[in-house]
């Protein structure tokens, strides 16, 4: 029998000091592994030129400067495609893609979770199966489809496929199963609300955590999408692509590269910080039953 210590009539779970120490040590080491590279980028982006070229390289910055960021803008404005165009592309693709994905996924998820119709299990299983393979598998055939549709080298090739992510539908459906009470839906229907109205006015507000999660998932993918095989024109390329060009451009641009990486990472991280508790709540229902 385990020794039970009780404090205020509550069972205290047995925890060894050695275990606590080991666990915290592990967390600190892993945390350092995860955090230090991120920290290093931020430091690099703030280093003036002479510190970037200092030997040995340092993990901190003595005279922080924002000149790398302003250099980035100068450098990009000399480009054949203006800097603002890349940003516009990324923002435009991210926002429209995310919005469409949210709308289509929630509508389909609502039907799959709350309406009973022949074929719904089969369709959902198909979506679950598609979580099991990576998009590289479909890239070749999608290239042919895009070329048949004359969507190559247009925004459509980036935006429309983002509308129907399996992950989005999956997370939304799982959350709706438990997050939307069937009784409330029933009473709305009795009051004569149409199914679309019930979905939009009753169910959607109940799954706010899920649509925030969906938005992050979708936004993150689109924001970080780089060199697409469907896009040739420089005018349609994304910010991430432009940044990769700069970063891989060599050591001379180390500071500028770091600055652009920092800009790229700030947006998704901020979005995640704002929505973290909602995301965790949604993930609570993400489990696969069999």
């Amino acid at each position, binding site marked *: 029998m385990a020794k039970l210590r009780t404090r205020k009539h509550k069972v205290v779970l047995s925890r060894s000091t050695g275990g606590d120490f080991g666990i915290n040590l592990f967390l600190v080491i892993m945390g350092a592994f995860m955090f230090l590279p991120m920290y290093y980028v931020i430091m690099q982006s703030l280093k003036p030129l002479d510190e970037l070229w200092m030997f040995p390289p340092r993990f901190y910055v003595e005279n922080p400067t924002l000149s790398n960021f302003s250099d980035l803008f100068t450098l990009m404005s000399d480009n054949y495609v203006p800097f603002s165009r890349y940003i516009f592309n990324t923002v435009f693709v991210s926002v429209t893609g995310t919005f469409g994905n949210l709308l289509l996924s929630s509508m*389909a998820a609502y*039907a799959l979770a709350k*309406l*009973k*119709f*022949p074929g719904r299990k089969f369709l959902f299983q198909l979506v679950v199966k598609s979580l099991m393979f990576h998009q*590289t598998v479909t890239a070749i055939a999608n*290239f042919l489809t895009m070329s048949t549709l004359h969507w190559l080298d247009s925004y459509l090739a980036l935006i429309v496929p983002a509308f129907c992510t399996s992950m989005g539908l999956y997370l939304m459906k799982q959350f709706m199963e438990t997050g939307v009470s069937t009784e409330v839906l029933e009473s709305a229907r009795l009051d004569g609300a149409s199914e679309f109205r019930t979905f939009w006015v009753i169910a959607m507000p109940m799954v706010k955590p899920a649509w925030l999660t969906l938005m992050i998932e979708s936004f993150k993918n689109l924001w970080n999408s780089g060199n697409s095989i469907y896009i040739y024109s420089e005018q349609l390329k994304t910010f991430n692509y432009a940044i990769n060009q700069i970063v891989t451009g060599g050591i001379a641009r180390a500071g500028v590269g770091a600055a652009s*990486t920092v800009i790229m990472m700030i947006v998704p991280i901020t979005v995640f910080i704002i929505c973290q508790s909602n995301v965790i709540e949604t993930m609570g229902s*993400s489990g696969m039953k069999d």
Partner: protein
Amino acid sequence: MSNKTAVKRPTAQKDMTKAQWTWKEMKKNKVAYLMIAPFMILFFIFTVWPVLLSIALSFTDFNMLEMPNLVWVDNYIRLFLDDDIFLLAAQNTLIFACITGPVSYIMALLIAWFINELGPKLRSVVTLIFYAPSISGSVYLVWQTLFSSDSYGWVNGTLINLGWIDDPILFFQDADYIMPLCIVVALWTSLGTAFLSFIAGLQNVPRHLYEAGAVDGVKNRWQEFWYITLPYMRPQLMFGAVLSITQSFGFGGVVTALCGFPSVDYAAHTIMHHLDDYGGQRYEMGYASAIAVILFVVMIGANTIIKKGLSKIGQ
């Protein structure tokens, strides 16, 4: 996975055939089909159809210029018997997947478990630290700066300063270093959705189960984890496994960004690169489709095996 409807047929309508009944149910639920239609149509065009098309094309010599000819299994024979680089790529992919998949899965689970014992404030900060690399896009390029091939790279600079080496090591050009480095970077970016799912799953385990466990003789946290936590969060473990497997086969982008394409001596050449080479550059679509089909079969196979294994936890 059956396409039979979940709705029980009312006994009064037993005189109808199954098809008649299904058709009646379908008409009654027109609205439901209307609601899933936009998603499902796009899903079929961009996810289901590509798989079918790839399978069909893999038996042809389609090259985007001429009408495809049926060549049966020639593409597959060529892959396995004539294409040494494919075999190398397959080997690299398997090594990559067999290391990054399990390691990132266990890492996500352990870290999520350890984080779970922290207070709520600290927990959200630590979660962010671990999750951030996976959402920050091309931030993994910092590893190129850290392991840069001159003395201004932090690793080389430090090693030279310490006197351990005299000349900088060309990390991303040296076949011996490429794979291990890419694996480390891949692991660094791997704590994504599965990790969050584990954190949420752990938070959902009711505390009274642990208390009951303590009364029933659970001696330490490891037993508690094995006998109570893991069985309770099995659905999350399944979900996480699917994501980890899919992810472990899809790190091609990271490798290309770090070591260029093709990598030195094909040291980090994976099936994804091979696919891109034939599909995206040489337009040998039939051959590329065969590669895609193999990748598809391997991923579905890995998922099926792992699912079987996980269903045994706590039984």
